[in-house]
């Protein structure tokens, strides 16, 4: 597979409530900024555009149709959409570049979660005949997973709190973060449980916003004279939907994707893990086989701000940004979808 360059990445601030801003108003600023950062003047300058979003956040069919209004798609453009996190829109775009049908692509993801109750909306992801009628929300399922991890005996509640402490501390350097600050493990453990064993801070905040990225062939990136990060490997895998059939304390889909993406081929400096719940960062980190020398979630991760449908793309962007800035040489980005980390994507990014 040929290397693909990430030349720009922009995300909006993670805010709990974007007020009267609609999806188009959330998307336009990040798309314009990502194009500008790549030295492009409009969407007409890329060969392909792909986005990720979820109708149910908006509560109406065809949320992504309005997204096209944010682009300036006149004359018409080559465009597609996945009803998945925009990391999968990146994957579709990467395939287009691999097959030679595009040399460059714009990818964006957006979500305005504030109009609804996200954890209840997502309970409609469950098997509609056997699971959804039970009304189990995302947080309860995650709590069950956290419990299974704790009971496996290798992780304590203090380890979960440690994840949150690091996230909030790292987020102090992330101007887009919703939650940041200095906390101690003892302080966090003194908080009451929300859905046992999870405390409120173990759960990601809910945010409105959008993110956008421009990728292209390495040849094109060189011709543009822009610094870039290189996608060396990318793979995604899904597991059975039935949580009772899984060992929830492990993530075999991350293990396979990491192997296929080549995570273990060389040392890793940094990783951005899409873990909406603190214990999930531990599960993914272990499945990736990363030791404590690796910097995890320098942006604060999604515990500091969760742009549902764009957070996976943001993890890729956060790693790329730091590699482009010269802070790290080789990094891993992770995206997830579904209850209890059912589906996962892994990317390996390297410096140019």
């Amino acid at each position: 597979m040929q290397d693909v360059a990430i030349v720009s990445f922009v995300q909006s601030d993670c805010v709990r409530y974007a007020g009267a801003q609609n999806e188009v108003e959330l998307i336009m600023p990040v798309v314009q900024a990502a194009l500008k950062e790549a030295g492009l003047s409009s969407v007409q300058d890329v060969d392909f555009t792909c986005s990720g979003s979820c109708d149910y956040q908006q509560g109406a069919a065809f949320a992504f149709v309005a997204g096209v209004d944010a682009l300036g798609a006149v004359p018409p453009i080559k465009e597609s959409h996945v009803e998945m996190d925009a990391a999968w829109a990146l994957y579709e775009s990467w395939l287009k570049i691999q097959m030679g049908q595009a040399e460059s692509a714009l990818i964006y993801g957006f979500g305005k979660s504030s109009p609804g109750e996200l954890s209840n909306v997502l309970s409609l992801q469950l098997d509609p005949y056997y699971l959804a009628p039970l009304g189990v929300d995302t947080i309860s399922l995650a709590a069950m997973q956290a419990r299974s991890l704790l009971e496996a005996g290798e992780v304590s509640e203090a380890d979960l709190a440690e994840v949150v402490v690091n996230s909030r501390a790292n987020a102090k350097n992330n101007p887009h973060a919703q939650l940041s600050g200095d906390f101690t493990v003892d302080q966090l453990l003194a908080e009451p449980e929300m859905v046992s064993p999870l405390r409120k801070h173990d759960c990601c905040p809910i945010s409105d916003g959008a993110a956008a990225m421009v990728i292209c062939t390495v040849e094109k990136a060189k011709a543009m004279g822009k610094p870039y990060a290189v996608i060396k490997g990318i793979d995604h895998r899904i597991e059975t939907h039935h949580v009772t059939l899984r060992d929830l304390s492990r993530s075999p889909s991350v293990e396979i994707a990491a192997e296929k993406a080549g995570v273990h081929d060389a040392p890793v400096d940094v990783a951005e893990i899409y873990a909406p719940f603190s214990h999930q960062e531990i599960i993914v980190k272990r499945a990736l086989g990363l030791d404590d020398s690796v910097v995890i979630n320098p942006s604060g991760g999604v515990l500091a701000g969760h742009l549902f449908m764009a957070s996976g793309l943001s993890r890729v962007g956060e790693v790329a940004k730091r590699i482009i800035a010269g802070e790290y040489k080789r990094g891993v980005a992770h995206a997830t979808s579904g209850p209890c980390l059912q589906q996962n994507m892994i990317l390996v990014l390297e410096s140019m």
Partner: protein
Amino acid sequence: MAELAAVVGIGQTKYQTKRIDVSIAGLVREAAMNALNDAGLVWDDIDAVILGKAPDMFEGVVMPELYLTDALGCNGKPMIRVHTAGSVGGSTAIVAASHVQSGVFKRVLTVTFEKQSESNAMWALSNPQPFSPHLNAGAGGYFAPIIREYIRRSNAPYDAGIKVAVKDRLHALKNPLAHLQLKDISMEMVEASPMLWDPLRFLESCPSSDGACAMVIAHEDLVDESPGKPAWIQGAAMRSEPTMYAGREQVSPHAGRDCAKDVYAQAGITDPRKDFDCAEVYVPFSWYEPMWLENLGFAEPGKGWELTMSGATSLDEGGDIPWNCSGGVLSSNAIGASGMIRFAEAARQVRGSAEDHQVEGAKKALGHAYGGGAQFYAMWVVGSEKH
């Protein structure tokens, strides 16, 4: 440079109003198993699954790929979910093809479905968008004024739509999978059916169907491992434009013309009416046949209805360019699958496996899908030969 890929297996369900005998999982699995059987393959032969469907609200399941992975034998494999409105069936086939054409995968399964009986599509389509004026029209109400503008411009006779409605239902009688099997269909019967959205009558509109369509797409190297003839993918293209913009041409949208031009160039098509043996084109409302005949370059602007009225697009009348031999969307509309059914039926024709609705000796066929406010397009050209 893209690798060569071909359709080596096709599976569909029977299309009907309600499939209460199966769950959503059962429905998609039925189509997938039919495709695997047609390809002479088993689940382990598949590297990835590409799923498509129209809005999640049609069944009330958010991101149903998560729930359907078990039914589609995808555990431990890559799964991707495409959604591009009504064109999604076509877009999903194109995304599936790109998995193989990129050289990343050798053989993939692609599945699209709609189980409309689980919910109500008219309701799901008519939910108000936040901060936008509420249209509350459904698809027929949205397209009727555009059709009236077509009639005004082209001076088409009032019964051109009726003719399409009859022609596609006669085709459906040759396709046992088609939802509508109207043995007594006639111009009089269509004309006498209730007017829903002037000029569209009840029988000039598509039904609401449950159903699924699946295909196995293989790399050139693996094509011989399947027993049937391959349908080679000679070109594939997508185009999008906004629903509204100043000066937008709504009768013959710019995106449709561009998409056709792109896919024809890839497949070496210079005169679509001559170069294609048949076409499966997304015609959910009768009048869209003459409109798309023009948009896709089969007829001069304003002349599409003449082709329709002459019988050129009819299999029964021995037309030179039969459109929608399967009965088309007018006879079966499992929305999320409808685009893929067009793509798969085009492939069936060039594989010589279209049974009673086969166009004799078909070598090149067009598959077409559109969606949204006639703003999203997906098309592919398939052939019995590689190029």
